[in-house]
């Protein structure tokens, strides 16, 4: 390969590089765009905006569905009868407690701890 560039003189090399860049600038002038540049650009813009609109519609639909499910679950939770505890029922109806219609809760008595606390009755 022909090579007549100086390898030791840095300033001369710098000038050669500047010349090369100038030649490159000259070799690639501002191009003239094709006749379908603008129509293609508008097509791409429309495709992108319609994609974005579709995604937005899907996202909105998803949020609406999620909100509906939340409302439904909240309604179901509110409408179900809660299981009251024995204490609540006893306090609310002392007569029933006296008549024995409310069974007393089971009790666990912990025996004296002299056997290591494992003797439960």
């Amino acid at each position, binding site marked *: 390969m022909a090579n007549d560039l100086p390898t030791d003189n840095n300033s001369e090399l710098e000038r*050669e590089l500047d010349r090369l860049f100038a030649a490159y600038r000259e070799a*690639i002038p*501002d191009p003239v765009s094709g006749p379908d540049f603008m129509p293609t650009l508008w097509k791409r813009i429309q495709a992108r905006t319609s994609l974005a609109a579709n995604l937005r519609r899907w996202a909105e639909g998803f949020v609406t569905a999620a909100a509906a499910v939340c409302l439904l679950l909240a309604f179901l939770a509110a409408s179900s009868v809660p299981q009251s505890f024995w204490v609540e029922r006893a306090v609310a109806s002392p007569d029933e407690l006296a008549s024995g219609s409310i069974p007393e809760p089971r009790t666990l008595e912990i025996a004296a701890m002299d056997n290591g606390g494992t003797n439960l009755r």
Partner: protein
Amino acid sequence: MVDHELIERAKGGDDAAFGQIVSSCKGWVLGTIARLIGRPEDVDDVGQQVFLRLYQSLGQLRSPEVFKPWLYRLTVNASYDYLRRRRRRMETRVADLSEQQMIAADMAEAERRRDDAASKAQVRELVQTLLAGISEEDRILLLLKEVEGLSLRELEAIYHVNENALKVRLFRARQRVLRALPASGWGAVRGKR
């Protein structure tokens, strides 16, 4: 320079105003892309990417004064994406060729051409080969400075990086290209011109 009122109208969703902006900026945007990527056949595609991104993000432009550096930035980013894609394609295609073989092949191909267009093609390929030795970021920065003639202040506005950091990057990139220049075949090409 694009009229500020036109930019404001385009920001407000006026497609006719946007079309006028494209028409007035298309020349220098496509020219810059052509020199950054070095492939005239792909310029329209990358240029459309730039204006598509412009259309999508015009609403985020803070003030019309920064429009030009901002459009430069979009141009640089689109060119950078293109170069990265192309490098990936080339790596898979010519992974087994050494750089010297590629230079020799490019030069042999280029030397077969005899007219002015061939001479320009030689210069183009030679610069592309030289710039292949540096990263895409440095390549674009170097070309913006050396070929597009942008000042450090303009580069600062595009990159949002301080002048000293830019100087260091430019110096290193230029030094790498300089080191590769003697063996590039530029002497022979220049002799023929």
